[in-house]
């Protein structure tokens, strides 16, 4: 199940674990990503907490935990190759995986078509 937030994050939910990244639209708006600060495995976040930071040359943006849960894995490849967020935001450029503590939080999120409509409305 692929879901999207209004903060331009996507999450792929499989077996109770959400893989989280930022969208194509977001990476395009941020420009060349030069650094990604990831959370620690095991850390717990409530929905909306600052979980990661993504930096371009001239800007730093917070990535929020889209759900409440614990971090189970992080994409260590981004440390050496932050450009993956630009080249493959929805795939190799994923940020972290987390547990889904409260599946009702998924209800407020968008599906792909809904998100596309959402960003079209921003312009």
């Amino acid at each position, binding site marked *: 199940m692929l879901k999207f937030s209004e903060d331009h994050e996507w999450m792929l939910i499989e077996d109770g674990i959400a893989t989280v990244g930022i969208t194509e639209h977001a990476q395009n708006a941020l420009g060349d990503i*030069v650094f990604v600060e990831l959370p620690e495995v095991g850390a717990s976040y409530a929905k909306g907490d600052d979980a990661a930071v993504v930096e371009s040359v001239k800007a730093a943006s917070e990535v929020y935990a889209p759900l409440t849960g614990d971090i189970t894995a992080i994409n260590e490849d981004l440390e050496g190759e932050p450009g993956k967020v630009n080249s493959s935001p929805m795939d190799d450029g994923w940020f972290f995986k987390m547990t889904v503590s409260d599946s009702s939080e998924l209800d407020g999120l968008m599906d792909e078509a809904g998100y596309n409509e959402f960003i079209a409305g921003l312009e």
Partner: protein
Amino acid sequence: MSMNNQGRPSSAVGGGSSDAFETFSGHKGLRLAEPLIYEIGNHETTGVDVEEPSDFTSSLGALERDGEIGCAGLSEPDAVRHYTRLSRLNYGIDMGVFPLGSCTMKHNPRLNEKMARLPGIGDIHPLQPQSTVQGALELMQELSHWLMTLTGMPAVALSPKAGAHGELCGVMAIRKALEARGDAREVILCPESAHGTNPATAAFCGYKVKSIPGKENGRVNLEALKDALDDTVAAVMITNPNTCGLFENEVRDIADAVHSAGAFFYCDGANFNAIMGKVRPGDLGVDAMHFNLHKTFSTPHGGGGPGSGPVVFSDALKAHVPLPYVVKTSDGAMELKEWPTSDGADPTLGRLTAFHGQMGMYVRALSYMLSHGGDGLKQASEDAVLSANYILAALQDVMTASFDGPCMHEALFDDRFLKDTGVTTLDFAKAMIDEGYHPMTMYFPLVVHGAMLVEPTESESKYNLDQFITSMRGLAGEAAAGKTDRFAGAPYLAPRKRLDETQAARKPVLRYRAPEETP
């Protein structure tokens, strides 16, 4: 006649182009390529004569450093040449108009440099007995007098090392004053147009930052400010004249609203150059304001510092000034107070730097002030404001002014005039480099799109201003006409073309390593 046929051609001949070849040296005429010292120096060469002591044994035993440090040395001629060549890759005020908004890049008088190098100023130690530095303490007193008189404020702290350090000093004093009255407050309000240091400073002092919106006319929205003011607000930090280059015309109402909410009014004095001798912040209700001596009072920017950021205080805050400070004793001697009273009740906010602050900058600033006098400072502000308005008037038909004039000492434009040209603010600024100018401040303040903030200062002649205006009009015309070649890769004529900042940040190389050390 005697016919000397050894003459050389004295008129231009040829017709080739330097585009057709590369030089063998890598130099391009007067534009000389320069390697790093590590690529031209070595461990044996030195540019000083130091006789090693003949019978030397250190007393350090196992704590003596062994192994190579890695320093590269150059002889004196090579060192002079290396740094001279590097200097020629730089732009400075001495070379031309430097219209960098918010930075006040005015002429740096050389008299100031000479005064800072008097042995009795440059060669005295901060911990000499005070009886041997009475003149230095007197100089600090004199500078304080000028700063207090120009602002109409009763106290000044000289020691902050730069503007942001001055902000820290001011906000700490505010917090001290609130704590002294048992009033814990949590919030500092900053306008959206604030310098980045303002929120960073507030956070440093443990405050939450709330943003207050601006109005259509580029000023603080007084009603929104009033709505945000309650008993949790410690202070409001406002730059006046503000970062849009405008005077806050409701400043007295702002001060009254802030004070009636029990909060303090911090003024960022970065733009004091517009109002020297014209307006005293103390009359407007300001509680604390820092100066940037390197902006307003002509101490050199030096490629990014050193700065100096004295802070003036109102009666409500003056008890909390940091240590050390100079007091005049009853017998006329100058005394430096360096420590708080030992009973623990001293209201000082503490010590912000190891010694007494930037003496080297104090003397330069005082030299500048004495040179101008009260009359000259006022004239300087008037000229700075007039020059900015002249630029605004001369460019507003081809560029888009963000707000109606008059402006203060800087004119703000935005990128609406570049809409649909394919040229960005960045491109426009970089094209100015090819025109021989340092770009204006761009993308600041954040409240307008593609901001271009132009501050000519009082140091430019009308001739210089007119030349500058001609270039700017020319560039704006080219952009409007869709002739974008000169913008797309600009600068073309600088020592370097645009640099790859993405690569620099992705794979940071922050120091030289010899090839054999490189992992």
